[in-house]
């Protein structure tokens, strides 16, 4: 953030229940506010699930719209929420296409490994096209104060960040990853618009090195610790005359030792997974921070305060809750994650947030998006 901002009068803005539009002071520090509740969302979630299953998945497109509307509609900036108004039919079309493609992939696996390998290659190569479509669809049907977002990412750049650079990962032993990440975030942020105003992300690859350096160090440490662990366990179990002592000699006597061995393997696997989850949370939180802290929208700025441990706590408790409730805690988990993300994000609004709508918006409003119809499918890529 530049010096001029520090000189301005900065006022902490309390989250209001009603929109306060006309009386914004000079610069507001406006936290994002998430008001969704697990109780309310559980009912929406279970009805979504039930109807989706009962309709063999067709309702799932409508379910997705209702879910997004619930989360957008409960996210408030300055007392005003976001809106999502995509047409579920378009989402359904996209889902059917993806379903057919993945079905073909699954079947090819059993026909011949060559066909399967070729199909995986093809998928890898066409992924950027789907990614651009999905991001554009999502952006265009999201709006704030009746101004739609937009995504103007070019296919060529999508290829660079989703195909070309990732292919270099094995050749550089992973060292290219921070560079790749910077370019992916760059592509993502700089291609998005709010109305006519573009988002501007500006940070060097240098900013990403500490994150991946730390993650790499943690992974090495993890590998070492578990290497020791496993050696100790195997030594112990061999001594007790179990499976490893005489492979192929399985019989009633070795049953107890064998069971212990398998149980230990499961436990080790579980602990390793939980440890890797922390590393993933650490990376995610810090990359998110870099992304928002170095992004501006016109004269407005953002501040993200996620922490690896904060995010990990959410992931971990969510995981155990969902597992021990056979999935019923899923809505609660989703609400918690959304709340954490919103709580950690603040928008620094300089003046007022007055942005013009783009031409695309007028096309959507007027002709019912005839101009966009051909590529207007939503592809759930988890982006």
């Amino acid at each position, binding site marked *: 953030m530049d010096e001029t901002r520090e000189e301005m009068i900065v006022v902490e803005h309390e989250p209001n229940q009603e929109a306060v539009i006309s009386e914004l002071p000079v610069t507001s520090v406006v936290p994002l506010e998430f008001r969704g509740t697990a109780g309310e969302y559980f009912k929406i979630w279970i009805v979504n699930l039930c109807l989706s299953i009962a309709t063999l998945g067709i309702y*799932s497109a409508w379910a997705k719209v209702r879910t997004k509307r619930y989360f957008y509609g409960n996210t408030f900036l300055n007392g005003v929420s976001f809106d999502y*108004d995509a047409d579920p039919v378009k989402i359904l079309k996209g889902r059917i296409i993806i379903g057919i493609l993945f079905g073909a992939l699954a079947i090819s696996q*059993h026909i011949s490994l060559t066909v399967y390998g070729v199909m995986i290659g093809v998928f890898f190569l066409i992924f950027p096209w789907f990614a651009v479509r999905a991001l554009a669809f999502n952006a265009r049907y999201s709006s704030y*104060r*009746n101004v739609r977002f937009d995504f103007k990412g070019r296919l060529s750049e999508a290829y660079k960040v989703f195909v070309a650079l990732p292919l270099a990962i094995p050749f550089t032993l992973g060292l290219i990853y921070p560079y790749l990440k910077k370019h992916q975030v760059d592509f993502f942020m700089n291609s998005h618009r709010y109305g006519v105003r573009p988002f501007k992300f500006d940070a060097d690859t240098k900013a990403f090195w500490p994150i991946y350096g730390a993650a790499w160090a943690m992974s090495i440490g993890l590998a070492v610790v578990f290497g020791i662990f496993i050696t100790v366990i195997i030594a112990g179990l061999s001594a007790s005359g179990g499976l490893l002592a005489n492979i192929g000699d399985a019989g009633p006597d070795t049953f107890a030792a064998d069971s212990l061995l398998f149980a230990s393997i499961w436990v080790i696997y579980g602990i390793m997974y939980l440890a890797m989850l922390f590393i993933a949370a650490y990376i995610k939180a810090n990359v998110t921070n870099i992304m928002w802290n170095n992004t501006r929208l016109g004269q407005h700025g953002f501040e993200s305060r996620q922490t690896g441990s904060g995010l990990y706590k959410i992931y971990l408790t969510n*995981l155990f809750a969902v597992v021990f409730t056979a999935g019923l805690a899923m809505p609660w988990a989703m609400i918690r994650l959304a709340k954490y993300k919103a709580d950690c994000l603040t928008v620094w609004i300089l003046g007022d947030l007055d942005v013009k709508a783009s031409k695309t918006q007028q096309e959507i409003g007027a002709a019912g998006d005839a101009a966009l119809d051909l590529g207007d499918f939503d592809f759930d890529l988890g982006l």
Partner: protein
Amino acid sequence: MIEFNAQYYDGLSSKAHQVRVVIDDAGILKIEGLPEPIEVSFKDVSVSARLGNTARFVKFAGGAKCETLDNDAVDRALRGHAVASGSRLVHWLESNWGVALGALAVTALIIWAALEWGVPWGARKVAHAIPVEVVQSLSAKTLDYLDEAVFEPTTLDEETRQRLSAGFENMTRYRKGFQLNLHFRGGEKIGPNAFALPDGSIVVTDELVELAANDEQVLAVIAHEIGHVYARHALRSLLENSAFGLLLTAVTGEVSSTVSAVGALPAMIVQAKYSRDLESEADAFALTLMNETGLARHHFADIMELLRDDHQDHSDSLLSSHPPTEERIQRFRQ
């Protein structure tokens, strides 16, 4: 007359206007508080479907929008003027704890029914719809691979092999469809066992022949394996297990590593159950085939007992791929 506060956005910029929306009894909607007041027929606007207590949008032709948190007022207006707005039914379903718990029960029931009946039924139909030639071609190379990785050449003498082959010919003479072939292999790595490959190859290990007290017992095991081939179990198993993964993805709505990690144990339990069902089916087939061929059914029970005493028996657990051995023995002793 219905009134509520709202923000008005003209759709050309994000500038907001605090307004008051008034809908009179004649169905005319007025927006007060704008530099130029707006008046339209309520029937000419579209209202977003209600979703919990999230903001409600009244959308005008031309892209302008009114946003309000007063959902109840909007609902009253919609009812009063019989204007459609998305699905009131869905919102009602989503606001009702009784409905939610009912939906939970229905969902659980459907998932259970799908796993218990739906998936096996579907897998059976699909597997049997595929032509025999295609099924046989699916595993043509498997025996070669197993020969490289697991088996050794058989050490049984010629006479034993001829006797067993003759018995095998006898059993399979009247059965049409699959081309069945009997193979003998040394199975030091796996002990006494028999396999059926989808392409009709039946493999019997020397150890099984040595363990058996007579030819009839070996043929009994072979009958069971033939059952696997005719009932297309390999293909059905493949389809059933894939379906479970698909179901998990569809229900959770996402393809993440967490879902597959957490779903691993339920997947194993479900797959083991499917496996036990198929093994039971193969047992039933063996029973029929043995009757047809004139083999006394107790031979199957006898060899089961010999095998049980030879291995450790874990067949009573949730994760066991075969039904409990006692049960299987009983069936063939009746």
